[in-house]
């Protein structure tokens, strides 16, 4: 665990100018924490296995680590509120959307984090990590050994993923996963980072654990890290069937489908070999980024499923976060919570959805992307 550090106030804008000087030495951020080294076997392994996240299997080490660090963090009073006191309900209707009443939550808290967070303009250095020291739970990095390993109380490696607790959680275990590298500029959605996130999901091996990322399409956006959280029940979108767009698991090893009967047009990528998924999803994300389109990603089912929610980017339109795209909505007033209806949610989802034409183009792009990797 990170020692308690002095939390600096936000705004790293003025530091940006002096950043290049200070980071010239490419110094590793001077922070002590527990480091989880991902084993090589899971990095190279082609096949995740035939069984879905098996209910009979016991919790993995990384899973226990995240849960325990989170619980410990909460017990020390570092979270603003206990999210498990927030009431949840299923919104009546066929889709079974989930609503949560959380009077302490507001969207601004997420933006505050981003302001404190790393600027995506230069390699990481100590000043970037410092604001997060209090909430830093662990660090995950690629390891050298076959199996995964937990090393307690070491200094941060030169690259990896910082796991930072979200003091305003949406659900139990809500964390930020912030990739960093002292030598390079971090690319938000390149394949390497996507691959790392998928590996983390696979390593946690808990079907309640979901990883998300939102990209709002603008060039000037802050570096928005990945987030993850434990949802006790599957998100509504995960329960829906899909219409095949490409492939099937048996022959091509990767399946792309369109989520059926959902007012937000979405795609799902399924594969047991997450390298394949990462390649394809990475391509599509790059395509969307190039076009300045906004989207959200949801990695679920221990890394075997990735949902892509392309969204229409409009300047003042309410943009949905990945869990909202997945069907989980947080309300901060009792009346909103009481009066939410399925039809309201459906119309909200529809308002950010791509239209049919653009969605079709996207699907075609997916097929092109996949065929590049199918030999």
């Amino acid at each position: 665990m990170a020692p308690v550090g002095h939390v600096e106030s936000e705004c790293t804008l003025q530091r940006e100018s002096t950043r290049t000087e200070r980071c010239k030495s490419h110094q590793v951020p001077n922070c002590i924490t527990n480091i989880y080294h991902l084993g090589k076997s899971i990095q190279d392994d082609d096949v995740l296995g035939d069984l879905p996240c098996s209910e009979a299997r016991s919790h993995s080490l990384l899973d226990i680590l995240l849960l325990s660090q989170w619980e410990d963090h909460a017990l020390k009073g570092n979270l603003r509120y206990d999210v498990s006191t927030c009431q949840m309900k299923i919104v009546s209707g066929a889709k079974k959307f989930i609503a949560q009443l959380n009077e302490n939550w507001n969207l601004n808290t997420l933006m505050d984090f981003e302001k404190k967070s790393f600027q995506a303009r230069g390699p990481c250095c100590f000043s970037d990590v410092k604001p997060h020291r209090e909430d830093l739970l662990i660090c995950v990095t690629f390891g050298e050994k076959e199996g995964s390993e937990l090393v307690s109380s070491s200094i941060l490696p030169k690259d990896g993923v910082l796991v930072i607790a979200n003091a305003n959680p949406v659900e139990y275990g809500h964390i930020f996963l912030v990739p960093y590298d002292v030598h390079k500029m971090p690319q938000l959605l390149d394949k390497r980072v996507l691959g790392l996130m998928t590996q983390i999901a696979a390593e946690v091996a808990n079907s309640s654990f979901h990883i998300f990322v939102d990209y709002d399409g603008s060039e000037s956006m802050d570096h928005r890290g990945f987030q993850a959280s434990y949802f006790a029940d599957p998100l509504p979108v995960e329960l829906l069937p899909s219409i095949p767009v490409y492939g099937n698991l048996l022959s091509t090893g990767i399946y792309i489908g369109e989520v059926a009967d959902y007012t937000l047009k979405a795609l799902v990528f399924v594969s047991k070999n997450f390298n394949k998924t990462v390649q394809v999803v990475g391509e599509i994300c790059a395509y969307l980024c190039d076009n300045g389109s906004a989207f959200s990603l949801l990695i679920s089912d221990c890394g075997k499923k990735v949902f892509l929610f392309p969204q229409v980017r409009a300047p003042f339109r309410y943009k949905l976060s990945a869990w909202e795209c997945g069907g989980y909505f947080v309300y901060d007033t009792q009346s909103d919570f009481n009066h939410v209806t399925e039809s309201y949610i459906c119309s909200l989802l529809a308002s950010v959805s791509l239209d049919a034409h653009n969605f079709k183009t996207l699907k075609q792009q997916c097929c092109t992307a996949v065929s590049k990797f199918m030999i």
Partner: protein
Amino acid sequence: MLAVLTAPAIGRRADSTSLSPLTSLTELMDPSLRLPVEQSLAARYSEWVAEALDEIQGCFLITDPGIAGHPIVFASRGFLAMSGYSLEEVLGRNGRIFQGAATDRRSVMEIREAIREERTLQISLLNYRKDGTPHWILFHLFPVFGVEDGRVAHFVAVQVPIPRRSRCLRSSAENRHEGGTGRFLVACRNEFRSDYKLGCNPVVELFVDVDNRGKLCLLFLAIFGSSCFLFLESINNKFVSWQCYQNYGSSSTLFHLLLVGLEAEESRHATEQEKEKACDAANSILSTLAHYSKLTGRVISDKRRSEAGISAINSSLVISLGRIKQSFVLTDIQLPQMPIVYASDEFLNLTGAQLSLSIRTPASFLCTISSNLILALPACVLLNSPHLSYSRHEVLGRECWFLNGPDTDADVLHQIRQSIQAEHSCTVRLLNYRKDRSSFWNLFHISPVRNASGKIAFYVSVQMDENAKSNEHGLSPHMRQLGVVGAVKVAVRSLSMCAGPSRR
């Protein structure tokens, strides 16, 4: 093929819970409970209720779930006459003293569940009188709720005897409809024949799957002049084992013994008349209690007024909890005796005897018994009695403090209770006792767990034997405990669990 074991101690007896009531009556009521037990009815229904209840015909007991151990606070005259006990022998004891070896464990569990869920239950049950004779009763249980606080004030258990309606005599050759039973007897006979030829003195262990239908009830042991004895040991609901010690006496004597000694009877069903009788008695008792409760102002009713919304442990939660490979229990604190509603396998192992090495045979290992082939037994090692480890049904429903003992520090217990009151978690180190009464230092962590409604549904407590701790995979024991808490919190927050949230 025989499984021949080197004998464990001869004369080892089955645990008292399976051989009661012949053995366990020497214990009296815990003196600290005497006052609450005696006051239990009077406090709510006034001094005159006992007399009024005595006027009611029929056999019934009243128990108070608010007192530790859920003791009996009233027994009707009819009940005492039927069971052969005196009032002093029954007051302050728990209802399980009337159960015995052949009482169906499933029925016992149903009763426990009904108590936990605070609902009415009517079930046939085999009970035992003071002299050890078993008898079938229709057991009708119902809760009585305090109108003001919505909590259960008392449970009433009405018993209506179910007489035997036809004799069930059997002989091994004739009786086939009991399935396993008939086969077992045949097998036994061959067993001992061949045994006898060997001319040695083996201990033979016979495993028979008695299935749902065969329940073997040991009525008495007749010993025909050879030093043989036979006792019944239950490993779980399905497997019943006998250990037969055979001297160089004649095997035919033993064979004879078995035929006489065993009688199988699955269950007895009550007639409509008997059920009506039970309901009538229940109604009289209820109206008497309701009437007298008005005298004290602490009015009762048979319906709970408030929506308590108890979170039941449903099967999906059990599956999620089953993934957590650590010792922990879930406690339901909404019931006053704070019963355990879930216990992990590791908890059962941790609190069992230190040397217990009972390796349970998997359910798939069944013996097929034909008339010649006796047993197909892989070696099954039972070094110590398997009953030295708590079984799940011995733990479920039990109050969460049962691991404590004479040397457990009262201050530490107080600290735990205070944390529960304050709805906080706490970590302490306290002395706990295993089933064999050996003690160990328990690194104990307890934490409230909320369900999807945001309210506390359970408390999870995680136990760790101080001696057994180690930094496994770089994770400290305390961190592992917190990991358990986290996993439980995620599981319990599932919407499939919650009875309460509004659906609009």
